[in-house]
Structure formats: structure tokens, C-alpha cells
């Protein structure tokens, strides 16, 4: 029995418990921060979603049960914003992931200027989205660079951000441009972790470029790929800044995304109860989406090994 206790202790890294008090001191910043600025708002947000609340008229606040949720379900703008957000996510995540993957594979070879590529592709992803949106707003304008390019290739100039048919796609293209570098880095890290022997073995087995890719690279990169897709999805569901700076949800609500709709209802109309309900609905959608992704993308994991 004694030896069991000793074994248990030494297996775990932490030393025997110190005084609870000093532990508390060490943890206190996080406890305070977590409690006040995260847990409380999280719970309060749920409470708010069952209320009608306008901060300018706190006297009119009242419980409305599930009314807000019912209203969201009946609200065409809610569905429009959800649809646009889903289009955005499903349009950008696969494209960004594919570009990042192939770029990482390409850079991973013994090319000259490797670190230049790595750094250069990465830069757009750390610059503020506000800056990127401002720049592209001008590039997409009628006399801007994109139209000039289109003309060079014989196409017709158009109002990219002013036409409901092209506005969202234009923003999606910009998003792909500005974020693939980030995921390239992640893929590169994953690629570098693949032991060289595996590649050598594959070459010996007669696998060419695609063979190696399929039997060595992809399976080894599965966890990273999943990670990339998951964080890209979470991030894409929250698209806001680009909309705020470039189109404000227009034209004709074609770029109205869920978070922007939430913001608009909360901070322009000051319908904070309703906005909270919308927020939770969005959260539920994200969780479902992620759950499906994890489930679907994990299938076939055994086959790769």
C-alpha cells in the first residue's frame, strides 16, 4: 500500500499539494477574470435571451420566455444572415484549406527562398483585418485595380461590392487571400514532423508524388488538417470586421452575416434580449457544424494508418 502511494505521487508531475492559500493566489487572476468577464457574461447572456431588454429604458425590461427565439425563427433577416454565414463558411474553409495544404507541400521541398515564401505568405494573416478591408474596398471600387485587371483580361468592369450577386463572393475571396498563409504555416509544421523514413519507404515502394501524398502525407497530417478546418470554421462563422468596414450587410442584405446582424440588433436597435437569443442560436449552429465536421472527418481514420 505504501509503495502504491509513492508510485502514484511520482507519476504525476506536480509535487505534493502545497498550501491551498498560495495556490489560490496563483490562480486568482484567472478566477477573477474568468468569473467576472466570461462566466458571468455567458450566464447573463442566456438570461438576457429570455428577456426583452433595452438599456436606454431599463424600466421596461421584462421576461418574455421563449419569445425571442420564436421571433428569430420567424425573422427572415435571421435566416438570411444564417444563410450568408453558411455560404461564407462553406465557401472559404475548403478553399483556404486546400490552398494552404498544397502551398505547404510545395514550400516544404528543398526550394531556395523557402523562408521568404513562408514569411511572405503569412504576412497578410497577421495584419489587421480592418486594414485589409480598407485596402480591398478601394481595390474593388469601380475604377480600382480589380476592374483594371478584369479589363485587361477582356471582361467587363463591375461594381463588385455594390451588386448583391457579387458582394459576398468578393469578400470571401478577400478572406481566402488574407488567411491561407496562416494555415500554410500550420501545415508546414505538420509536414516537418513527418519522419523522413516514411517518405523514403514510400519512394522505395514505387509511390510517385500523388502516391506519397495519399499514403504518407495525408494520413500523417490528419490531426493538423482537422485542427485547421476546425479553427478556420470557428473563425469564419464569426466574420464581422470585413462586413462592418466594407458593406455593412448590404447590398440588399447579401452580405448580412450572423454576427453583424447580432451587432446591429444589439448596438443599433438596442434590442439586447433578442440579440442575445440570436447569439445563442448561432452558437448552437456552430456547435452542430463542428460536431458534424469532427464526426465526418474522423471517418476513415483507421484506413489511413
Amino acid at each position: 500500500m505504501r509503495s502504491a502511494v509513492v508510485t502514484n505521487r511520482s507519476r504525476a508531475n506536480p509535487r505534493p499539494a502545497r498550501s491551498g492559500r498560495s495556490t489560490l493566489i496563483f490562480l486568482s487572476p484567472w478566477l477573477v477574470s474568468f468569473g467576472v468577464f466570461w462566466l458571468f457574461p455567458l450566464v447573463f447572456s442566456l438570461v438576457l435571451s429570455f428577456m426583452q431588454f433595452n438599456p436606454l429604458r431599463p424600466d421596461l425590461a421584462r421576461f418574455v420566455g421563449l419569445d425571442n427565439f420564436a421571433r428569430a425563427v420567424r425573422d427572415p433577416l435571421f435566416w438570411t444572415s444564417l444563410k450568408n454565414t453558411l455560404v461564407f463558411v462553406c465557401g472559404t474553409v475548403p478553399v483556404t484549406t486546400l490552398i494552404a495544404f498544397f502551398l505547404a507541400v510545395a514550400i516544404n521541398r528543398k526550394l531556395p527562398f523557402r523562408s521568404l515564401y513562408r514569411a511572405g505568405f503569412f504576412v497578410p494573416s497577421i495584419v489587421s483585418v480592418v486594414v485589409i478591408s480598407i485596402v480591398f474596398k478601394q481595390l474593388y471600387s469601380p475604377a480600382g485595380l480589380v476592374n483594371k485587371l478584369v479589363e485587361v483580361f477582356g471582361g467587363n468592369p463591375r461594381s463588385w461590392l455594390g451588386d448583391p450577386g457579387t458582394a459576398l463572393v468578393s469578400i470571401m475571396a478577400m478572406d481566402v487571400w488574407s488567411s491561407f498563409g496562416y494555415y500554410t504555416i500550420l501545415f508546414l509544421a505538420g509536414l516537418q514532423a513527418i519522419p523522413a523514413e516514411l517518405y523514403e519507404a514510400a519512394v522505395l515502394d514505387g509511390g510517385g508524388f500523388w502516391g506519397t501524398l495519399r499514403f504518407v502525407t495525408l494520413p500523417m497530417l490528419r490531426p493538423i488538417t482537422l485542427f485547421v478546418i476546425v479553427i478556420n470554421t470557428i473563425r469564419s462563422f464569426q466574420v464581422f470586421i470585413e462586413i462592418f468596414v466594407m458593406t455593412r450587410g448590404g447590398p440588399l442584405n447579401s452580405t448580412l452575416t450572423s454576427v453583424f446582424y447580432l451587432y446591429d440588433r444589439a448596438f443599433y436597435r438596442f434590442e439586447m434580449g433578442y440579440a442575445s437569443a440570436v447569439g445563442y442560436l448561432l452558437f448552437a449552429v456552430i456547435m452542430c457544424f463542428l460536431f458534424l465536421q469532427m464526426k465526418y472527418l474522423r471517418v476513415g481514420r483507421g484506413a489511413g494508418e
Partner: protein
Amino acid sequence: MRARMIILSVVLLALLVSTLFPLYWMVATSLRGEGAVIKKAVELWPKQPSLGNYVDVFRSGPFSRYFLNSVVVSAFVVLGNILFASMVGYGIARREFRGKRLLTVGVVSMLMVPRQITMIPLYLLISKLRMIDSYFALTLPFLVDAFNVFLISQYVTSLPAELEDAARVDGAGDMGIFFRIVLPLCKPALAVVGINTFLVSWNSFLYPLILTNTERMRTLPVGLALYSQGEHSVDWGHLTAGSTVCALPIIVVFILFQRHIIEGITAGSGK
């Protein structure tokens, strides 16, 4: 084989140039004269590059205030995180206590739940405390970031505990051990924490947008976004100059600390 490499290099180079081009355009436009975008929409490099727009932008209006606010806020958030995240990370790594599991779940969940859920109550809380439009509002909620805590706790876990044990045997107190032994050992992780926190804080937009009312307290991204809109004309020379000023610190930090940034990103993927 060589030919393939050459083709690949050319393609990559072309892709690189087109990726960086919009940013290059931004800088080039900022060096043009005022109102130049009107006179000639696209110009690859200004005939007479000048810093006039930068001078204008800093001199007139609230721009220098925006810049100052961003600097102050980022400094406090970075320092706060370095201090507090390391404290908490150390506590998690080295201590056994009831509810530790719960805590870890808490930390992870903070990373999963999108910010939009908490933004309204956070706004109302800050508003109730009469702290809207103050440095307090812009820094306090962000002093302890869950990801940083996670990073530090991972790092501390990997440190051998002998030094701390020895110090404890010598009679040092907990705080002393933390500040004099653990913290210095954590320098690499702290560097990653500091740099990545700076990147996030400098570019932060949503919360500064809702937590500030007037130009006195706005940070740079918010100020730029608001300036770029509106019925009245926008001067693109000024706007690109301001945008460049916003982007420059990030790019400089990146060039200097590339390794740390990448380390910070890839560390998270380890889980």
C-alpha cells in the same frame, strides 16, 4: 527534375507577389500626394513619393490619439498577460487541487465559445460600472487570456522541478520561487506569450468598437474603420497612410520575432 523545381519556383514567386501586392499598393498609395487617387486611380509607384500624408495624418485630427491608445492598451494587456497568465499557468502546472479538471475544462471552453455571446453582457457590465470609454474597459477583461495560460502551463510542466524543490528546501516562499526561479526559466514561453498577445491586442476591433464612445478612447483599428466610412469624402492618401501605420508595428514585430510567432501558433495545434 530541375525543370520542375524551376517551374514551381516561378509559380510560387508569382503567387507571392500577387499575395503581397495589395499591401504594397497600400504603402505606395500612402506615399502619393493628397487626393492622388482621384487624379489617377492606379499608379504603381508615385512619381514623387512623399511622406506628406503621414505628416497630415498625425498632425490633424485624432489619429495620434488613436495611435497612443493602441500603444497604451497593448502595453498593458501584454504586461498583464505576461504576469498573470504565467502565474495561473504555473499554478495549474505545479499544483494539485480539487477542481483542477474543471479548471482545465474551463480554460479550454473559453477558447471554443465565440466572443459574440459574451459581448453584450460584457458591454452592459462595463456600462453599469461606468467604465465605458476608459482604458479600464479596454484592458481589464483581456489581462488573462486562456490560450496564454495554456501555453505557460504546458511549458512549466515540461520544466524539471528540481530547482524549485531545492529552493523550497532552502526556505524560499512560494512567491519568491515563482518570481525568482520559475519566471526567468519561462522566458522563451513568455516571449511567445508577449508577442502573440501584442498581435491580438493591437489588431483587436470588436471590443474596442463597442466599449468606446468617443475619439478620445478609440484604438487605431476602430478609428481607421470609422474614418473609412461615411457620406463625406474619404482621402485615400490619408487612409492608406493611417492603415500603413496600423500594419507596420505588426510587420516589424513579425520580422523580428518570426520564430516566436510561429511557435505560438503551432503550439496550440499540438493538442
